[in-house]
């Protein structure tokens, strides 16, 4: 289950809408082992593509080091699909390498909904989980 504040959900959605038609991506950091997303870190999509995203490698180093310094880990890794549903694709699954993270997907293919959904991806296997949005 992903427990996340409404404020953070809105931030993810706003980022996805802003970057549309490119995929948006980012991280929400939280204290190690706490499973609580707290600190919103939107990332640049170095691929700048409507069908692919990739964190810029230097920016990723900076952010990962900062999390380490603050005893945080990536609790949520989010990205948007711009033309397809908010479900992990084959490439999403291949490159999911943070075993403790909740992989959040939104879709900007429709104007009136974002299909905000969350998944665990472990050893190549996807399982969707419920999302509890805390107001």
């Amino acid at each position, binding site marked *: 289950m992903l427990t996340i504040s409404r404020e953070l959900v809105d931030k993810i959605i706003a980022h996805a809408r802003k970057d549309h038609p490119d*995929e948006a*991506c980012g*991280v929400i950091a939280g204290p190690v082992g706490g499973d609580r997303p707290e600190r919103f870190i939107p*990332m640049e999509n170095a*691929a700048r*593509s*409507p*069908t*692919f*995203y*990739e*964190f810029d*490698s*230097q920016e*990723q*180093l900076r952010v*990962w080091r900062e999390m380490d310094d603050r005893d945080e*880990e990536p609790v949520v*890794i989010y*990205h948007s*699909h*711009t*033309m*397809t549903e908010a479900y*992990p*694709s*084959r*490439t*999403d699954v*291949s*490159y*999911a*390498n*943070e*075993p*403790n993270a909740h992989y959040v997907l939104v879709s900007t293919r429709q104007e009136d909904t974002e299909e905000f959904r969350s998944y665990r991806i472990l050893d190549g296997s996807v399982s969707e989980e419920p999302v509890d949005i805390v107001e």
Partner: protein
Amino acid sequence: MAIEVRIPTILRNYTGGAKVVEGSGSTLGELIKNLDAAHAGIGDRLLDGEEKLRRFVNVYKNDEDVRFLGGLETPVADGDTVTVLPAVAGGSR
């Protein structure tokens, strides 16, 4: 010669759970061979079938991505920190 190597969560099963290990070598390529000798199997996660650095694994010498330095030929020395981070990427397909 001790080079500090920082290991991402997903590769810590090769290092018995260790976040930081030490290695030696005068180039990144040598360092990876040295690491694989001590932590069997880790080499395959960093190098592809043609012995090149995998596309979606980021390796840094101190603060810089080694892709900008010389790839596997990047010189490394005592006191350097090499960090490995799997790239965060994906797409609609």
